[in-house]
């Protein structure tokens, strides 16, 4: 430390960065920085997930990579014969880009990049055009105006990291001062739903709608809650009002399709899913739900096709494989088995997908009479 402090420039200037240090200090003392870092982590995790899905879709056959567990970067190693120059030109034409791995070599003549020399680097930062799969997005976000209030913003951040007590405390403090702030009431209802206090949530949402009958986020949330409480007829009535206001809203249509299938209206439900998928064909989760309804209707081939669409959209989607495995007469192909094995061997895959994939693999081995292959 003494050696660093003895630098001439420091002795002369006292500090290298007076102005910025003061700005940053204020942010640290207000706790806003810690909250912002939490938000950044969630945002980068979402982007990395979207990037991974997009890479699997477009470069699955010609490159290898590991989804990073943090930070900004994807590092891709190209298979032999892949043309990095052509990829770079194609990337540029598509309005994106990457840095060739060789640019990161210190070229010291020591053993370096001994693996495939053709390496490519993608920055996960701002992958424009790659959106997180819709199904993974949280259905409701407080409106922009309510987020202008710093306490509500902190509450939203606390909800994002699932810190329910912190979110509840912030929201209650806010509502004590502004008891008719409808977006805040809706957020508090969501907090109550997270911890299973459904009746509290219902009262809060009904109160919000009393104050502001046109506040759609609260009505949507009430429909979700009623569906969860098995009150399908009231849930449908709420959904009807939502759809009357916004007939093309995909969230409302999706919830309507879910509830219709729950009450046995399979034809209306599958028609609604088919209609949604015409507009949003890349949503793996909707393809899965569509597959379930088709299966219930006895339309087995179409249901298999829907599950396969789902897998094509998200190759690591364990639940889609699991659903295929659950079809009595269905048999996986060798290509399916290889794809599933590659997924479970990927250390970055999440737990729910891994469990579903292991189930599907187990079922496939059982069907083929290869019990020993499991042990």
């Amino acid at each position: 430390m003494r050696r660093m402090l003895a630098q001439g420039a420091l002795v002369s200037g006292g500090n290298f960065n007076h102005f910025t240090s003061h700005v940053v200090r204020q942010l640290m003392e207000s706790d806003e920085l810690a909250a912002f870092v939490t938000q950044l982590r969630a945002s980068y995790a979402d982007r990395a997930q979207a990037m991974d899905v997009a890479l699997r879709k477009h470069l699955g056959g010609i490159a290898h990579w590991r989804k990073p567990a943090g930070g900004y970067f994807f590092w891709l190693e190209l298979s032999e014969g892949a043309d990095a120059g052509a990829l770079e030109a194609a990337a540029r034409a598509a309005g994106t880009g990457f840095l060739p791995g060789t640019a990161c070599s210190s070229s010291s003549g020591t053993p370096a990049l001994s693996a495939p020399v053709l390496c490519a680097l993608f920055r996960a930062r701002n992958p424009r055009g790659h959106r997180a799969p819709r199904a993974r997005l949280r259905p409701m976000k407080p409106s922009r105006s309510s987020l202008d209030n710093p306490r509500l913003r902190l509450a939203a951040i606390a909800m994002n990291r699932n810190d329910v007590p912190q979110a509840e405390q912030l929201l209650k403090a806010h509502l004590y001062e502004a008891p008719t702030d409808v977006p805040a009431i809706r957020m508090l209802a969501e907090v109550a739903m997270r911890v299973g206090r459904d009746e509290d949530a219902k009262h809060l949402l009904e109160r919000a709608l009393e104050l502001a009958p046109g506040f759609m986020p609260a009505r949507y949330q009430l429909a979700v809650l009623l569906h969860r409480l098995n009150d399908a007829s009231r849930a449908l009535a709420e959904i009807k009002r939502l759809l009357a206001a916004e007939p093309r809203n995909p969230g409302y249509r999706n919830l309507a399709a879910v509830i219709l299938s729950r009450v046995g209206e399979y034809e209306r439900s599958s028609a609604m899913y088919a209609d949604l998928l015409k507009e949003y064909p890349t949503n793996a989760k909707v393809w899965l739900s569509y597959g379930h309804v088709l299966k219930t209707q006895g339309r087995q081939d179409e249901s298999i096709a829907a599950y396969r669409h789902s897998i094509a959209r998200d190759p690591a989607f364990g639940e889609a494989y699991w659903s295929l495995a659950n079809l009595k007469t269905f048999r996986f192909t060798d290509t399916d088995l290889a794809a599933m094995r590659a997924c479970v061997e990927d250390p970055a895959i999440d737990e729910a997908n891994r469990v579903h994939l292991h189930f599907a693999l187990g079922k496939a081995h059982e069907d083929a009479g290869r019990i020993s292959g499991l042990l």
Partner: protein
Amino acid sequence: VALASFLSSAAGSSFSAESLLLTAGISQALDFVCARFTQPGDTVFVEEPSYPYSFPIFRDHGLRIVGVPLDGRGMDLEQCERLLARHRPKLLYTIPSYHNPTGQTLDLPRREQLVELSREHGFVIAADEVYQLLHHGTPPPASFGSLIDRGNVLSLGSFSKILAPGLGSAGSRPMRS
């Protein structure tokens, strides 16, 4: 003091204000580290591959750059030891968490082993820890900032990745010894 308290709560270990030095970002911090701990003609070890804009800083100080390969779990320390038999570096530059550009992370036993090597071979570790706080769910192993008592360790941090690009108020964590 505010920085010490922010780092302590982020890292879960205690940092004292006396062990911190504010800089205008990693690039400036690296420049000063080179100025204080190396002479032209000395050797610096870097990961191979590494952050490409660090190379010109080392070259400005007349340093010879030697790359140490990575093996999927960060710097390959067997290779590092092999290279230490042939070179006597004054400085080792590493990006231990979510490495730029490969995304790899060095595990804790290797971090400790690297600190041990720095004592044995008398080089300074400059750990560029700008991504340390940006995990996507599971936090990385403890930063080199928490290992400063065990060897010749400087932990370099920055606000450019967690506040706004270009806002490089770096907290560098120099050795106590």
